[in-house]
């Protein structure tokens, strides 16, 4: 299962943190820093997977942003790697060529996108069409 999802920029600023385990605030901050340290030292020749404590991080870099998903060691690496990409494509469509600023100014909408695609640490919906249709309904509401 997914333990948490993080979006961070290269400087380590968090653009999204979604937790599926109960951590206290200090522990969250520690995890955020550790993930940043682990992921940013890796280059394109490295794998997209890093062992992390008792778990692993599956991550992908898009321009200056790192999308990281922390999952169990036995989870399927490639499935989560593509889950990240699927999520990014939805964001891209939703925000018309998404950029970091969109995530800053619309942070509360990003949470809605996440909740449509992932819930309780599992994959909820994978169809981009279905997710976007639902998000459009929300946008049309007041």
């Amino acid at each position, binding site marked *: 299962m997914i333990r948490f999802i993080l979006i961070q920029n290269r400087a380590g600023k968090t653009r999204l943190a979604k937790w599926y385990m109960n951590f206290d605030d200090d522990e969250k901050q520690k995890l955020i820093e550790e993930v940043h340290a682990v992921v940013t030292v890796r280059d394109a020749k490295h794998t997209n997977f890093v062992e992390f404590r008792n778990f692993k991080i599956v991550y992908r870099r898009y321009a200056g942003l790192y999308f990281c998903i922390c999952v169990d060691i036995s989870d399927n690496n490639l499935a989560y790697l593509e889950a990240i990409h699927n999520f990014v494509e939805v964001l891209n469509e939703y925000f018309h060529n998404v950029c970091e600023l969109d995530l800053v100014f619309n942070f509360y909408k990003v949470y809605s996108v996440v909740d449509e695609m992932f819930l309780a640490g599992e994959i909820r*919906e994978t169809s981009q069409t279905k997710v976007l249709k639902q998000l459009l309904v929300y*946008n049309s509401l007041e």
Partner: protein
Amino acid sequence: MPAVRGDGMRGLAVFISDIRNCKSKEAEIKRINKELANIRSKFRGDKTLDGYQKKKYVCKLLFIFLLGHDIDFGHMEAVNLLSSNKYSEKQIGYLFISVLISANNELMKLIIQSIKNDLSSRNPIHVNLALQCIANIGSREMAETFGSEIPKLLVSGDTIDVVKQSAALCLLRLLRTLSDIIPSGEWTSRIVHLLNDQHMGVVTSAVNLIDALVKKNPDEYKGCISLAVSRLSRIVTASYTDLQDYTYYFVPAPWLSMKLLRLLQNYPPPEDPGVRGRLIECLETILNKAQEPPKSKKVQHSNAKNAVLFEAISLIIHMDSEPNLLVRACNQLGQFLQHRETNLRYLALESMCLLATSEFSHEAVKKHQETVVTALKTERDVSVRQRAVDLLYAMCDKTNAEEIVGEMLNYLETADYSIREEMVMKVAILAEKYASDYTWYVDVILNLIRIAGDYVSEEVWYRVIQIVINREDVQGYAAKTVFESLQAPACHENMVKVAGYILGEFGNLIAGDQRSSPFVQFNLLHSKYHLCAAQTRALLLTTYVKFVNLFPEIRVDIQNILKSNSNVRNSEVELQQRSMEYLQLSQIASSDVLATVLEEMPPFPERESSILAILKKKKPGMSEGVTGPLKENKHPAAVINNTGVSYTKNSENAPSLAVSADLLGISSSLHQPTINSAPPASSNNTSTNLLVDVFGETTSPTAGGAKSAIGDGIIVKNEESLKKFICKHNGILFENDLLQIGIKSEYRQNLCQMGLFYGNKTNFQFLSFTPSISSPNNLSTKLNIQVKPVDTVVEAGAQVHQILNVECIEDFTDLPLLTIQFIYCNVQQKLTLRLPLTINKFSEPTVMNSESFFTRWKNLNNPTQEAQKIFKATYPMDSEAVKAKLIGFGIQLLTGIDPNPENYVCAGIIHTRTLQVGCLIRLEPNTQAQMYRLTIRSSKDTVSKELCKLLHELF
């Protein structure tokens, strides 16, 4: 799609812009404080805030919180938003609550009420928001409140798909919080049938829930097997155009396929031949598709396809029943080993590790050895190299061990620091496991020390010593090799330790050669002495004194070193003591005594390699707030063809004593010179293990079941376990649910140092913890016991160590009492035990020949000097066991003295401060009658009686 840059809430966008424009942290804090003051005054003053404004301010507070600042107000306004009818207001309210409000917040009652309202709303969007909120928070209270409602929502025909998806995962979250809300009975089949749902999104969500339910109750949910197989079959055989929305880069429903394949890994291969056939077809199709030309050059296409492929291979490995599929899987992974994508090479190595453990595919995996070795040498990413090491370890067997170990040794020279220690252990284990020739094993370990000395842990070099000591055929070779290794100009300290130990034991085996004569050996070792740490020097001192025995011709050289100022006056007390004592020993003792004291170490009891135990230990986990089951790390160990040395797992027979750590007795806190303590201690170990079997220790002696009343009505709780301590010094004295007491004692003449280890087994502190020793009758005049006080608080799970120094003044019969009082959870606890301190503990084995034995025997002819008992055997009359007990008792077993070889003859001296009592013992078994006659003669009548009493209970 709307252009969304802070649309809807201008104030929020302005505020975020302001924050972004702040030039410094101080400016940012100032701006935030200004905003907080503004929001506070809005919330406090103006009662006419409309929904929009509330939403905007709550959203700003949320933003401020996410920047890392504390928010201590606004919660009520957020809860108010929940009852709004507008989606955007509700959404912000729920978001604020799931991010910011903890489960025990006082507003939780209100929140739960709002969620209840939304769950029963006719607007599915409101229901959905409520479900997502429950899934995000998932508190116990929510599980109790909604646990029975959500299954209804999940299977109801009126519920729309989007809500079903959330309901399934919401239920999963609540299950993880509170497992007794598992729906069962009629729900089971309805939930299982969600796998047949028309809506793929519902299946995608539900399969997660079903997977969790299956893990809790596989039998009840086994109906899911056939449904999962047919669903999978439909997806796998579908063309990518069939599934439209659920096709991802030309791959039909990759995530759902992956999940279904995982679901099936909860069960053995399907029993129903139809289902099984269909599943195998699916797996074949997936393997076939991997060979087809890609439908797209995009990495997304191949990733999605391979996500399914790897999961299929996991299932094939899990089933472990289709040799054909296993070999095909292996070939497929073999192709990936040389793929240009690092991810694929990594995953192929990882997956192949599992294949290597299946008997069907082990051989197929071995074909890729060369590629894996190349990966080890050329991969840029250390985690890939790590996987290559794992795979080499897993594919290793008797046929390729030398090659693989050789390659690993080669690589070790340049290996990353992060993986060296683990590699060293793996090499050490493989070398031991597959050694057919132990000279090879010795070479490997010495190479390890040479190449990566810093990473060779104690376990590794202890182990090589254990093996050399236990295997006579390799001792000479080992001595020769360590001698050669020492000659290298730069020599790792671990090498010095191993060499010191081995030469001290077996240096004589190579002393015939002029190039390694005693003097040369000694000089070579001593040339390293001053460069070594105190611990190593202490070891070398022991080697030197062992040389005194092995090579009398260099005794003077050694004595000169021992009495040099740098040793005798060394600031390390351990070195001082050893030098002094060894010097004295070498000067005073006769060659016979030296030969006995400095005798070659007895073999170590066979046991599982302690290195393996270390390797099995997993890395530390995520510390706080870990919820939900953690899956086990699947990295396999080498398991095939377990030949070579056989391990007997008798580690539980030596409780709480890290036996390997005692190997050299250096780190022992009891300052006892190694030579005095080590050989007897380990011979005791062997006999202890024998005794354990004899006494049938399976019925725990520590259960505290046996009680006996003494004198003034005190209940002694360890009467039964005392017997086993007559012949051993260390072990568990007592154990109940709260407390474990271990004992470790060392004796020297009439002195004893006893360590008591009090372990708190509970999750609470022990307060006012006071162990005290009392001597019944007039025991205090006979035993002088000094107790060091201990801390009065014993933390949960902690162990407290107490040292007792005992001096035996004259012989005694009573046992000291140990009374332990403490307060556990406000209840006073009291416990009285007898300390296993019997007179025989102060006995020293004495060697003598037949003549002197009988002379003494005859001299002790006063009737009071003899004690005799004729008794029926309680234990099997096994000669080895009897001998072990006699030796454990602390007396020398003498052979060739009694004309009847069946009889046991022993001698010992009991040391007390006032007197030394020589004891002669004869034990005559009569196997036909199952009887023994035990006769003891000593210079003191009370000693004879007491020894007779203690001994006869043992047989």
